[in-house]
């Protein structure tokens, strides 16, 4: 099992609840806007505390049974919808911010490998504000990958991109799925996207 999630959270008037267990590959959390998809990713990342429930990823208990790991202990690679690049670091600084593995560590991709994988070589000295939407998204994905995550959370990674950029990012996500074999939880409200990428779909209402 990649993700085993059973959570409940009352947010104002809205009750967010989800229950699913998934296998390897990409799992899509699919539903209309405002169904609480982002809240569920935040609960798995440790940024939002569920009222009750249990969260396991790759068999590790992240939350539940009196366990509540801090976000920095969960080893999530979170690609946010609005990128959240640090405005006071250049691209290179953003990429290395979460780097856990040292260069030469055989367990994970090196800085150079990630830069090549995502085609970031020409961007390293730039400030985040100067990046286009597609470039910023690639940097955000690279930053998540360099933190040596045990799983990826992707929140609508194709929104606000034009068609060629969407295709480019989709190819990247497919390569992460096939070459890095990371379990990915993927939030989307786009049926076509989900059909192409996901191996299982969790509908949310």
């Amino acid at each position, binding site marked *: 099992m990649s993700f085993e999630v059973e959570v409940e959270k009352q947010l104002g008037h809205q009750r967010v609840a989800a229950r699913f267990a998934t296998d390897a590959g990409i799992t899509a959390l699919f539903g209309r806007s405002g169904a609480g998809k982002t809240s569920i990713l935040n609960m798995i990342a*440790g940024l939002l505390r569920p009222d009750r429930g249990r969260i396991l990823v790759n068999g590790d208990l992240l939350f539940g049974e009196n366990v509540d790991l801090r976000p920095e202990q969960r080893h999530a690679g*979170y690609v946010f919808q609005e990128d959240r690049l640090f405005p006071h670091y250049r691209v290179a600084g953003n990429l290395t911010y979460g780097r856990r593995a040292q260069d030469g560590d055989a367990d994970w991709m090196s800085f150079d490998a990630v830069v090549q994988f995502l085609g970031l070589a020409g961007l390293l000295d730039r400030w985040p504000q100067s990046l286009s939407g597609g470039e910023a998204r690639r940097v955000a994905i690279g930053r998540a990958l360099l933190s040596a995550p045990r799983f990826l959370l992707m929140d609508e990674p194709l929104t606000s991109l034009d068609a060629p950029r969407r295709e480019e990012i989709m190819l990247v996500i497919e390569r992460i799925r096939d070459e890095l074999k990371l379990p990915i939880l993927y939030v989307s409200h786009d049926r076509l996207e989900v059909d192409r990428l996901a191996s299982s779909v969790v509908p949310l209402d």
Partner: protein
Amino acid sequence: MSLSAEEWQIIALSLKVSVVAVLLTLPPSFLLAWLLSRGRFRGKLLLDALVHLPLVLPPVVTGWFLLLAFGRTGPIGAWTERWLGLVFMFRWTGAALAAAVMALPLMVRAIRLSLDAIDRRLEGAARTLGAGRGRVFRTITLPLSLPGLLAAMVLGFARSLGEFGATITFVSNIPGETRTLPLAIYTSLQIPGAESTVARLSLIAVALSFIALIAAELIVRRSSAGRGGHVI
């Protein structure tokens, strides 16, 4: 325009008092700004009002409170003299304390605004990348509030340089010890025929304030190269 030794002494004393006041106020200002920006506790409104009190009170009242608390027989003044050998009454240290208290509300406001303006989702992102609370503070929160900190220091410095009412009430107007620039200008105004001294000292006050503002703007521009930050 050449300055007399006495005038140089006044400038040096004013700068010393203002720099010490700003450095003294910076850590508590940051702490208070943090509490007011991020804290959720009972009595927050009360703390907010208390911090702003020196801004709205007549400075002479603030000076009198300082006299009561930090005078040689006051509860805090007696304690600092006994245990730290630190006397405020009629000393430049008292002038710095008065300036610090008067600068506090302005500095807290400036820092609080910059803390409020930080996108807290960036702090969440940093934590998912493996940074603990301490590292998030050092690498995200503090650098992003830097323009606010610098603005606070400039405001505090300018406010300290101009401090008059609380200072003269608390530590009097002693040449070489507590006679800062505004007090010296006031003294000269009392002396018939000293208009040229008043003009010179006033020009110096304008120049010092102007230099402080320009310097701060340059520092902020450099620290936020390409990112667009401003003090003024």
